[in-house]
């Protein structure tokens, strides 16, 4: 069973990578979601997929064998809650960035690092100087 899940994990990471490389901010959010779920899947598979019996100790016994591993489920639960909160924040942030900047194209978002703010001279002025020097 594990190889199938490993392949699914690989496909999910590939999909996430593809989405994250997009310039569209909405696709980036979707990529983050898929990547987060791929992470959860990797933890789940790491805990081994042997038994499906719930890890409950029967009355009168102190030990059980051959039950599902509860630890990965606890870890995934934690990770799901965290990624839910973070993705919710990300969506709100992206939405207000869209409102303020008027674009969801990640390449066009240059408010923090404008093109003409390198070394105090604008790129245009620099290009002009180069052109003058060449002429």
């Amino acid at each position, binding site marked *: 069973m594990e190889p199938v899940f490993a392949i699914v994990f690989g496909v999910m990471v590939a999909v996430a990578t593809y989405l*994250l490389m997009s310039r569209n*901010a909405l696709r*980036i959010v979707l990529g*983050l979601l898929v*990547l*987060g779920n*791929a*992470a959860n899947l*990797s*933890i*789940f*598979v*790491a*805990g*081994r997929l042997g038994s499906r019996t719930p890890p409950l100790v029967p009355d009168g016994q102190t030990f059980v064998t051959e039950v599902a591993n509860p*630890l*990965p489920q606890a*870890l995934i639960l*934690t*990770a799901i809650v*965290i*990624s839910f*909160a*973070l993705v919710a*924040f*990300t969506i709100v*942030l*992206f939405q*207000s*960035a869209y409102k*303020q*900047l008027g674009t969801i194209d*990640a390449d066009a*978002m*240059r*408010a*923090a*690092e404008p093109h003409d*703010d*390198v*070394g*105090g001279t604008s790129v245009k002025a620099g290009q002009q100087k180069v052109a003058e020097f060449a002429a």
Partner: protein
Amino acid sequence: MTSHLLLTLPILFPLLGVALCALFWANKLAQRIVSLAASLGLLGSAIALMYAVFDGTVLATHFGNWDAPFGIVFVADMFSAVMVLITGVMAVAVGIYGLAGYIEPKENAFYHLLYQGLLLGVTGAFLTGDIFNLYVWFEIMLISSFGLLALGGTRSQLDAGVKYVTLNLIATTFFLITVGFLYGITGTLNMADLARVLPTVENQGLVTTLAVLFLMAFGSKAAVFPLFYWLPAAYHTASAPVVAIFAALLTKVGVYAIIRTFTLLFDGDAGYTGPIVAGIAIFTMVTGVFGAASHLDVRRILSFHIISQIGYMLFGIIVATPLAIGGSILYIVHHIVVKANLFLIAGIINRAGGSFHLKEVGGLYRTMPFLGVLFLIPALSLAGLPPLSGFWSKFTVIKASLDAGHVVLAGVGLAVGVLTLYSMIKIWNEAFWKSAPGASETAMVTWKGDRRTRALMLTPAISLAAVTLTIGLYAEPFVDFSLRAGAQLLDKSAYIDAVFPPAQFVGSLP
């Protein structure tokens, strides 16, 4: 009993701070008092923790009394304790500075709450002895920093937030995936247990793969060479106190995690990861310092210098001798103090000179000679001039790398120091030395007229400069402590014994 208290108090104070700030969300004064009191509590408990581990003992506490490796443990050795202590110092210094009205319009919007949340995440990350728990603390730290960065809601902050959030989320998800793989191979998440189990794993190639994956995940947090792009895209948009606490703590948590995992978990395969880290360190130092040289905004220059300095902190795990790791620890402590102080002073330059941009300020040495001296102390220390703290930390790491024959590494380290000096001189020339452009006169009048703001902004800067001078002029105890901490990191047995006490104590139920 006391060890439980010593280890939990440093996270309880910020946690209490978060809770109370949320409770007093409409009352700015109450939030200020709570936040400052919580920071002071953090500092106090950090001093107590340092006192307890100073002689080399390793403290550990098992939450819920679950024996390791089943429950979550908190562990403090000398390295953890010094990181918590410096966090406490920064929390108080930047906390006082933050009262100067930098965030005034947005102070109600959860500034104090997020500030304490950031401290909570950072302190937890330094103290935890469980790798999944480390992930949780990372996330607490991140979500707080996201909030702090976007607090102002300006165009550039939102733009910076988009990049900062996306790249950091990818990095932490990477970390989570790696933790999953690690659990799959070893079946445990307790770091002391991992230190025992990992050398016995059959497929050591997989362990090396994990080491490199961790290096990528933590390296992205620490802003090392190919993974640093989130930092210069974001830091310069935040307000001065926010960027000061970011510069002090965020990347250093990444460095801490790298040093911790590569001394405790992955020391066996240093032959493979060593050259990789050496390459990363060299490129980190060089790209950072050139990035800084090309900018004229004080905050952007200083942001690039954070990246450049991270390279030196990696010397410890490249060389892996007590001297090198001790040097790295000393470097981290020195760098936190100096870098945060430079950002605080950048805030003062902005207040008194009217701008962060070097073309628009000037003449500050004429109007405020004292500020000029105050700037030179951390600036020259950053470049590594004797007798300041930067000299001793650079001296230690470079001597360690020369001892081990890493000549290129040491040479690049020295050259980058010179280039750092160039950037610092540039700030000095533009902001302090050249005559003032007309626009900045009004800012100076406002600054001179506001005694309270001056006191709130200058006191932390002067105190941190005093710390830099103390480390520089009275270096022996600091160097000695760092070297002992480095030796302790290389000897894993104390850490493991603290988490797994000798057999007679295990399972002693009442």
